[in-house]
């Protein structure tokens, strides 16, 4: 079943279109990796898909209904969004940030229920932050902050997860954890869209790849079909070599 679908989606900032006529669908269990050079419109596409940036034309549908027809809170209940970073004006704790993930389910007055607390604890445990609940998030490293934001999105128990470069500040252990988390979620039928710069991370985690260039969708499909040396030359201007590994995921190496 299709969870989130963009058709002819365009949008940007202050009249300038950054994303142009993109078609993209995320079904249950899908993990779509979005790749592209800096400034290609990857983060903007993610904001448009989350509905936090209004489209200038085209539509995004959540479970077959346009985003505009849902209330903002209903969208947030179904769609988890992990931004690249968040500015913390006040010294929040790890637990306080993770609890924000439950806000779409609570409304203005209702205090968190045992289920809300359990979801937060499970999310923090899953990203490896159990025991760090009381730590001030401003004092954490960049990678740990990314994990807190991931936990916040997991705590909301979303049907679709949108992640903006979630692995950039993570060490290799946590990158592998993130791969495992995404695989677990997609196995449960959650759909995911992940903006990444690391092609090999995309090869590991995604069952589909979308390549953006100049705001347009340059290629989309299964990773091994899309991630060809010709495409890299055309989009990134670099030569790459695809190293096949028997019984494993192939490996992309740029040629200096």
């Amino acid at each position, binding site marked *: 079943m299709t969870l989130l679908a963009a058709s002819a989606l365009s949008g940007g*900032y*202050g009249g300038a279109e950054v994303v142009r006529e993109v078609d993209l669908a995320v079904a249950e269990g899908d993990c779509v990796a979005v790749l592209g050079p800096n400034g290609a419109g990857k983060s903007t596409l993610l904001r448009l898909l989350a509905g936090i940036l209004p489209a200038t034309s085209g539509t995004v549908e959540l479970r077959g209904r346009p985003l505009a027809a849902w209330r*903002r809170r209903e969208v947030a209940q179904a769609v*988890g969004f992990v931004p690249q970073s968040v*500015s913390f004006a006040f010294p929040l704790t790890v637990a306080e940030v993770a609890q924000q993930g439950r*806000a779409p389910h609570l409304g203005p007055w209702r205090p968190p229920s045992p289920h809300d607390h359990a979801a937060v604890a499970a999310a923090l445990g899953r990203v490896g932050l159990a025991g760090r609940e009381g730590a001030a998030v401003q004092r954490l490293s960049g990678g740990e902050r990314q994990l807190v934001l991931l936990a916040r999105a997991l705590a909301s128990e979303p049907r679709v997860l949108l992640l903006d470069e979630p692995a950039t500040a993570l060490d290799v252990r946590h990158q592998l954890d993130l791969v495992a988390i995404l695989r677990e979620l997609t196995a449960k039928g959650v759909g995911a869209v992940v903006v990444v710069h690391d092609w090999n991370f995309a090869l590991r985690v995604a069952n589909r790849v979308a390549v953006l260039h100049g705001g347009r969708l340059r290629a989309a499909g299964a990773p091994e079909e899309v991630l060809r040396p010709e495409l890299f030359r055309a989009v990134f201007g670099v030569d790459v070599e695809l190293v096949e590994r028997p019984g494993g995921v192939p490996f992309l190496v740029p040629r200096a």
Partner: protein
Amino acid sequence: MKRAADVTLVLVLLLASAAALLAGGPAATPADALAALAGGGTQEARMVVLGLRLPRLLLGIGVGAALALAGAALQSLLGNPLADPFLLGISGGGAAAATAAFALLPAAALGLVPAAAMAGAAGATALVWWMARGPLGSSSTRMILAGVAVNAAASAAILTILSVAPSPRLPGALAVTMGSLASANGAAVAWLAPYLFVPAFVLLLHGRDLGLLATGEESAAALGVEVGTVRRRVFLAAAALSGGAVAFAGVIGFVGLVTPHLCRMVWGQSTRRLLPRAALAGAALMVLGDLVARRAVAPAELPVGVVTALLGVPFFVVLLRRTS
């Protein structure tokens, strides 16, 4: 620990309120005041306690709660720990209009000063909102810059008015800029209480949204906040509270800025839990400040804005040192 802090806060407010009603000069000693509150006592004592001290206490509670609530909401809304009704030019706009009214209105029309202050605060709010609007909507940074500019203009206007105001009107105009609860009366309280109720309710309703907005607009929108609607409502409600405060008590600094931070240090960062406590703490600080203002150099009075600033600054220094 937080439960104990809740109880302490309520006790402090109750004790400060009791002290504000009982403490005073020979017209109503504590014993006279107690008798008056019980329905007996001399006529003079009843007049002083029920006609002067009680409205003044209630005005202090309303103004302190309004300023602290507005400050806490604005800090979260704009994601800036320094935001308060003063920084955003709302208090300044109200004060400029009130001083102008004091200087220019005929004596019979001085009852219109609170209305002028409200209009000035509303005008400053509209100006800040309009200045902050950019091609991408109004951002927090633009709003604070606009507020600083409006505040500077209001300060200049106040100084100009004070320097040319006819001397008999100078004390009244000056009192606006220093803050005072001395003009409290039953009518002012009866008018202000229902007026403050609606914006206070709006802010409490959006407590959870405000906590999310403190981590940025994009982050809040992703968590289900209708950012545009909430920002408009909260800014208007905070401005209405600040306008009400400045209309009946003049410019009172630091209550809106410091009280929310003190409460954050005790009760944590959850804005939903913070807002009602900030309101109570603002009320307590104001009642205590006014008590000091009334009694410290009796029979003369200090401006309550000066006292709250003197009480607030040391707290603020400690806060800055602790969070640096």
